[in-house]
């Protein structure tokens, strides 16, 4: 009986497909130990990341860091510009136009960074007597899982390395807190 080329081709295709399918099935990925899984997914738990914004490089860099931390789990990035309102005036009193403009501009830059990562950005201008109080309140309002705070490295002020905001937040963090600073 003369083999038909098409039949031979089908036979080879059948064998190869069968073999490859079974090989793929049998090659299981390694299991992840409980401790490793806990560490890995605790980072992915951050679905809402708050980044306090100022119109400065280190806070914009904090936005970039937050986006990279939140990319895998498609996190929402909350960008909050906090305005400290002196105690002599009421919290909702009109403020100079230029302060609002600065806030809007800083938020706009931060938002562009978030949009580059195709994540959802929420912007807010927060008024508070103290910046740390504003950040804490914003974290609660948006149910933030993580705050990423970029701060200026102040070499001359060692050992008081961080600002008063950082000190206050570290004493009583409203949620997980990452503080980023770069050597000058």
């Amino acid at each position, binding site marked *: *009986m003369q*083999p*038909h080329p*098409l*039949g*031979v081709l*089908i*036979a*080879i295709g*059948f*064998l190869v*497909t*069968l073999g490859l*399918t*079974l090989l*793929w*099935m*049998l090659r*299981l*990925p390694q*299991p*992840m*130990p*409980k401790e*490793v*899984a*806990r560490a*890995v*997914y*605790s980072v*992915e*738990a951050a*679905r809402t990341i708050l980044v306090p914004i100022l119109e400065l490089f280190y806070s914009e860099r904090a936005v970039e860091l937050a986006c990279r931390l939140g990319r895998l789990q498609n996190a929402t990035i909350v960008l909050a510009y906090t305005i400290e309102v002196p105690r002599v005036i009421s919290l909702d009193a009109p403020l100079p136009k230029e302060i609002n403009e600065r806030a809007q501009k800083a938020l706009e830059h931060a938002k562009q960074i978030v949009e580059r990562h195709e994540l959802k950005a929420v912007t807010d201008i927060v008024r508070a007597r103290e910046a740390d109080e504003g950040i804490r309140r914003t974290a609660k309002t948006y*149910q933030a*899982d993580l705050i990423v705070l970029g701060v200026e490295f102040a070499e001359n002020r060692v050992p008081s390395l961080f600002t008063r905001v950082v000190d206050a937040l570290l004493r009583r963090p409203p949620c997980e807190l990452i503080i980023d600073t770069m050597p000058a």
Partner: protein
Amino acid sequence: MEEESSSKVKLRREISVWGSFCWGYADVGADVYVALGLVMAAAQGATPLAFAIAGIVYIFVGLAYTEMASAYPVAGGGHYFTLRGLGDFWGLVAGAALMLDYTVDVALFAMASAGYINFFFPAAREFADSLGLFHNVNLIWLAETLVLITFLAALNVKGIRESSLFNEVLGALDMVMEASIIVIGFAFAWRPELFLHQWHNEFPTTKQLLYAVSIAVISYVGLESVSQAAQETVRPATVVPRTSLALIIVVLMFALAFPTVSLGIVNWQDIAQREGDPVAYLATHLPYIGFLAGPMAAILAATIVLISANTGVMGSSRLAYSMAELGLISDWLSHVHPKFRTPVRSIVFFAGVAAAQAIFAFFSGRKAMETMANMYAFGAMLAYFLSTMALIALRIKEPHTPRPYKVPFNIRFGEVEIPVLGVFGVIGTFAMVVIVLWTHEIARITRPLWVVAWIAYYVWYRRKTDKPVFRSIPRNWDEEQLAILADTGEWELYERFRIEIERRKRLAKKPQQGQK
């Protein structure tokens, strides 16, 4: 106390990736030996088309099962998914439909195994006697069938280790043999002109083709077996998607290859006439190995269909275990033997049901195998229809459940993703239910009656135990899911799910705080 402690004994988790695959393959691989002749008798030259049409629905159902079995790796399969997605009542209906299939599976394939054994004992094969009103009853074949059912029940009572090993060894052997028949057939004996001639000139009527499609769908029960075994599978969330997807591909390949190679080697009428041993007949027409192929195919068929029957025993007992655990049927059946750690009562009870169905088939006055095959497809299609509905319902109700595998092509509405292929699956399986009821004479009467009987029992049992009949028993699915994932050691999924639950709890508190 002893009763209470023994009832808490869990099923052992010992099935490997190959074992999980073989549970499914054993079911489906065996179907070719039984279905090929039956399908060819109806579909004639268009037999590959009948398998292909059934295969399309099979893909939709298979993908749905893959997603749900990996997300919810517990014994129960389709009935559990349906209960979780659509509620207790529909879970019972799906369970009843699957139970029907498993018990028919046990009876049909034990019968087929005995039939292939009788290939070597023609006197036993031809034996016929009359008992009162019943004529042409083959009591020897019936006795062989009952012995095989009893043997399989004992094997399953002894424990999953033994029966899983049994499946794995014979599953591998069968796959090598089936692949050999196909490869040698295509490479050395296949004539495309004969295939095309039969395709063009021997095309069936629409009703014949639909009947053939409804027989061809019996191959799908294999995937249910993988889901059934998920609670006893090591790392099920990782293993089950792989075995299920591999099973979809491998089963389709074999299901399409057998009729295609057959029609290129012999006439469809020859295969159709050999309903009892079509593969053996095909094998005898292979060059070089043909003189040995008949007996080899008979031995092979006898073993593989026995595996399928074994899968049915396993599936029906695990299904009963799951249904009892979920409060759909009596707790009496969920008892796990403290020594063997297997659901002994379920195994014995449903093996008994299978034996009763075999006796009915032999005394029905028709060909016993034809009677059983006629009843086979209804249960599977009804359960698959409900399961594909459950896939969509679960996507809506539990979008946060981690899914190691997700059916592709989805339309997103907020956080909910509706699977387009799942919708096709619903349509396809519903069409199959209609086709089965239209084309199967026995099934259209006896099978709905079976489901109705189960519903009647369910209503009685739920009333007796003060449980809601048409509403579901309140359950904390999230906690149960966490317990399942912890039990399976799938820590990635466990952490993802735990974190998601905590997040949802926090979000749920938010409006309450606002109200204050």
